[in-house]
């Protein structure tokens, strides 16, 4: 009886996901342009948040470098955009981010988590200063113009990256590496002594997550016709995914998606109505979430569900 319930739950989720996917894939055909653009923004944050959660969720190593990898993707797109076709540009953006993450990982992930947090926190500011200096002293220009691409193309590209990311995240989570990542988060020393090459697992997963952030950056760059270091390396992009993941809940894959979707919509809403207050509101939500929602929204819902079903069983 229980097995049948498990199977139908899984095929239900699968069916639902496929349906949503089809709806999303066809939406430029029937939805207004505003919705498509909003969905693109949601995809952007979902990709960054899910990528972030893929590494920082199970291991507990809080990366504050999302903006750095996203920004690297943006800049790669800006530099190569005129010379190469877009799909190649996206690959390059992802690869450069991947390599940067390998470097950062190799430097910091051999050591205690605090060094990782500190190093990733400053990375955004570092890249900002470096590229500013480069533009002032070497290339002589500040900022770059990015060749534009149609909104629908951007939408579909983001959708594709989203799907690839979800598949990757799912495969990792349910493979032995997912187990290894969890073990690192709970008892890293014991994991190392059980045969897990902890440094390698951490660095590779971190680099894979950066890969997707770079891809998202490379695509989104085409939405802003002009980018400069301050636009590309925006600390808010490091902050929001963390907030979204915590709020949504990091236990399941759907948590970051829900959190990202809610907050992207919230950001759009707040930026138009209360442009001077949205940082404040997000900051307050972050503090509240850390204090009162340790398992996020999904965790809260799971707890409620458990309580309801326990009550049901108590009645029978």
């Amino acid at each position, binding site marked *: 009886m229980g097995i049948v319930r498990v199977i139908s739950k899984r095929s239900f989720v699968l069916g639902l996901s496929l349906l949503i996917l089809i709806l999303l894939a066809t939406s430029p055909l029937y939805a207004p342009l505003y919705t498509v653009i909003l969905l693109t923004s949601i995809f952007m944050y979902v990709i960054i948040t899910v990528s972030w959660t893929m590494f920082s969720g199970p291991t507990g190593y809080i990366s504050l470098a999302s903006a750095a990898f996203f920004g690297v993707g943006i800049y790669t797109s800006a530099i190569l955009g005129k010379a190469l076709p877009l799909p190649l540009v996206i690959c390059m953006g992802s690869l450069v981010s991947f390599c940067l993450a390998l470097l950062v990982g190799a430097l910091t992930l051999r050591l205690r988590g605090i060094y990782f947090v500190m190093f990733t926190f400053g990375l955004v500011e570092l890249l900002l200063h470096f590229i500013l200096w480069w533009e002032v002293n070497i290339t002589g220009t500040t900022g770059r113009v990015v060749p534009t691409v149609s909104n629908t193309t951007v939408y579909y590209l983001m959708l594709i990256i989203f799907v690839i990311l979800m598949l990757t995240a799912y495969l990792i989570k349910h493979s032995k590496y997912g187990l290894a990542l969890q073990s690192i988060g709970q*008892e890293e020393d014991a994991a190392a002594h059980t*045969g897990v090459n902890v440094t390698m697992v951490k660095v590779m997963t971190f680099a894979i997550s950066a890969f997707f952030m770079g891809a998202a950056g490379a695509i989104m760059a085409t939405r802003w016709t002009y980018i400069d270091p301050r636009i590309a390396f925006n600390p808010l992009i490091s902050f929001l995914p963390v907030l979204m993941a915590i709020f949504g809940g990091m236990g399941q894959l759907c948590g970051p998606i829900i959190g990202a979707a809610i907050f992207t919509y919230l950001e759009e809403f707040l930026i138009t109505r209360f442009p001077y207050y949205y940082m404040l509101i997000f900051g307050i939500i972050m503090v509240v979430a850390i204090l009162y929602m340790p398992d996020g929204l999904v965790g809260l819902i799971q707890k409620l569900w458990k309580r309801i079903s326990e009550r049901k069983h108590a009645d029978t």
Partner: protein
Amino acid sequence: MPILEGKGVTKHFGGLAAVSNLDFNVEQGEALGLIGPNGAGKTTLFNLISAALVPKSGTIRFKGKNITGLKPYKICRMGVARTFQTVKVFANMPVLNNVTLGSYFGISPGLSSSDAAVKASEILEFVGLSEVKATPAKDLTLANQKRLEVARALATNPELLLLDEIMAGLNPAELAQAMELVTRIREKGITIVMIEHVMKAIMSVCQRIMVLHHGAKIAEGTPQEIATSKKVIEVYLGEKAHAGS
């Protein structure tokens, strides 16, 4: 050739020598007890063997190969497994997954996922934890958590097993079960080194005992020899040690 040998192994913490120019041998298939007052350097020695710490000087050889300076995961895959003084199970993971991690990563070359799962189930059967295979590790009793650590270590196919105070905190019934488990592990041909304060366990399970004090070896011999050694008695009466029997 001894399965494990150390020469001149030294480790300092600040100005203090935790392990001081230690030479030791472990013969294949034996059960070696490692005793000594608190702070004698026993766990530090385990940490040096398993590469949780790097020695200041000296070499450690496993099956003739120099393992000093290797990373812990490599040493594990070569066939050395251990448990920890403070239990380090993966608290939020089910018991089965704790052990499967070992069969996935601790064996070289790796097992397929179905083989790994089968092996993990077998090991749980062997240690007697099959009934709780789906329970999160944090919900187990201390005795069971210690058994889980042993199971996880066994999943990595070790030839040498380092047990760090697995009898501590157990009631008499649990103690008897633990001693019986150690005997069954030995029957599989696995060499064991065990740190213990519970003297009854050490004396009955081990053929040879090494006594450390202030990081140096002060005595080595059969349980009988150690129990009657004046030096050892002085050391233990001088410090208030726990004598389990």
